[in-house]
């Protein structure tokens, strides 16, 4: 401790406090074995396994992965990025929900207030919108990557099917969010989109009616799209995501090298 003049230097005291803090019972109880933040962590194969196994988020991963799957050029991280964008959209979406009312009278005023009165409101809305477009793009590119690698072949057929469902859910999520600003762009884009659904054979009118909660876009449509957007589609998407990730592991991890 002595640094020449018999006193403890500030640097040493900080170091000491830091060590005391990280080895306290509270921290010890939070960190599971193998955590890199634990005192005395050493880089060993056992600890490398523990890092993955003993963390609720990381244990989506296997302890070991095929070496070729780690290469950026193999997957371009597209599946992971799609998932991460979904998380970002959830976070920004929750933020936006605080400031948005899904009624035809107030929705547009809320959107204007968001970009003028709310701190970071404009930034978060932009992130939500561009993130949604990026997610549609990355899910689509992920599907293309999987196709070109032939990664849908046995035993991964069913996971491809789940993936196609996830792509459509992503499109529905994006499309249902498109109406919420309640401006001219939203109104008429959704009118065009739902008119397409109205061309369904036999049950076209019924499909359109169920989608719009009426014969044309109205305030009821806004509420319907809002609930679909913030609750229904995310819920269904998460269920299929869980199956998707689980099957990736069960079907033998990432597909083999070409």
């Amino acid at each position, binding site marked *: 401790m002595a640094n020449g003049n018999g006193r403890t230097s500030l640097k040493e005291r900080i170091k000491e406090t830091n060590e005391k803090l990280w080895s306290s019972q509270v921290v010890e109880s939070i960190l599971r074995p193998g955590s890199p933040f634990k005192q005395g962590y050493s880089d060993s194969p056992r600890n490398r396994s523990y890092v993955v196994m003993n963390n609720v988020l990381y244990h989506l991963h296997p302890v070991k992965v095929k070496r070729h799957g780690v290469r950026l050029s193999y997957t371009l991280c597209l599946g992971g990025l799609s998932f991460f964008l979904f998380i970002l959209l959830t976070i920004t979406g929750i933020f936006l929900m605080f400031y948005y009312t899904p009624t035809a009278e107030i929705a547009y005023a809320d959107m204007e207030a968001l970009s003028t009165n709310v701190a970071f409101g404009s930034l978060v809305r932009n992130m939500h919108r561009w993130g949604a477009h990026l997610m549609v793009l990355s899910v689509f590119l992920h599907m293309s990557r999987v196709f070109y690698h032939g990664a849908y072949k046995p035993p991964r057929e069913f996971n491809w099917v789940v993936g196609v469902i996830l792509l459509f859910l992503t499109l529905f999520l994006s499309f249902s969010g498109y109406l919420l600003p309640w401006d001219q762009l939203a109104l008429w884009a959704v009118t065009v989109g739902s008119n397409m659904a109205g061309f*369904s*054979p036999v049950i076209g009118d019924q499909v359109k009616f169920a989608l719009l909660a009426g014969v044309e876009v109205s305030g009821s449509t806004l509420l319907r799209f809002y609930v679909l957007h913030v609750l229904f589609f995310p819920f269904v998407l998460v269920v299929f995501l869980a199956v998707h990730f689980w099957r990736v592991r069960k079907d033998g991890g990432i597909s083999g090298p070409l």
Partner: protein
Amino acid sequence: MVEIPEDLLRRSAEAKAKALGVPVEQVLAEMKGEGPPVEPPKIEAPVEASDKPEPKEMVVEAAEAVATGDVETITKPATPEPGDEPESIEPDVTEEEEPFEAPAAAVIPDEDAAAAEAEEPAAAVATMGEEETVPVAPSNGGGGNGKVAGLVSPRPSVPPAGLPEGVRTQRLLTVVKARAIQNVKAEPSDKVNTWPHLMLMEFGALLAITGLLVIMSVVIHSPLLEPANFNATPNPSKAPWYFLGLQELLSYFDPQVAGVMVPLFIGLIGFMMIPYVDKNPSTRPTDRKFAIMLYSIFLAGSATLTIIGVLFRGQGFNFSYPWRDGVFFDDLKDWVNFE
């Protein structure tokens, strides 16, 4: 008669004594033929597998498991409990010295978590077991080589003296499928630890996309047009960009074809059926020229339609040139806005 080294005899006696719960000296004396046969404190019928072994299955016969030193923790599942002991326990060093670690370690399926935990200790035990088994039972591969024959213990070449006819010195420990107990042919797999190799990569990608999105959101503003007005139809009215390819198709085909049949039967059902239609097992691009060509046509086609829909459709959804008539796509209205 095979000469049994003293230390091996001693160890097997210890294992048996532990299993039976009797003093070691008693067992040792009995093994050397100097004492009365050891009876377990409580005799019960051996617990055997209830289902009948099928022809494809094989029976792993194992003597009392070796429970010495480090092996004990690993082989715990295979170590017999005192109550499970068969009626007759006779010295059978050839069998007793056979480590049972291979099935115990290999029974764990290729589940990363469990396997990774067992990996190091199991390997150590296998090495130890093989070395020690060689002098006693050279015909046996130590149980660790994974061959079917290696898993089935050979009958003792010399039946122990003083055994009544028909008394078995082995007992059924478990019935295993012929294939599943371990990977006989080790598949060459080149694996790396997820932490740090994969997760650092993912963390980098995560930071990159967040950075990209924040910069994009600062620079480019989301469009917000006039309030929704049912009486003012904009000209043209366009769908979101990912549906513009479909909207483009609508101007060539009947709405039922372009608006419903294409997305439903090509988009949803067609794509879902790909793995079941494509029977070609190869994943090499050179073997899949047709599939790759089809998908590339789909990619190029949808990209072309979307670009036409976004940039080259103007008033009344008629063709226009973006450099002459401007872009009629409100999503791009504030595309670059350095405010």
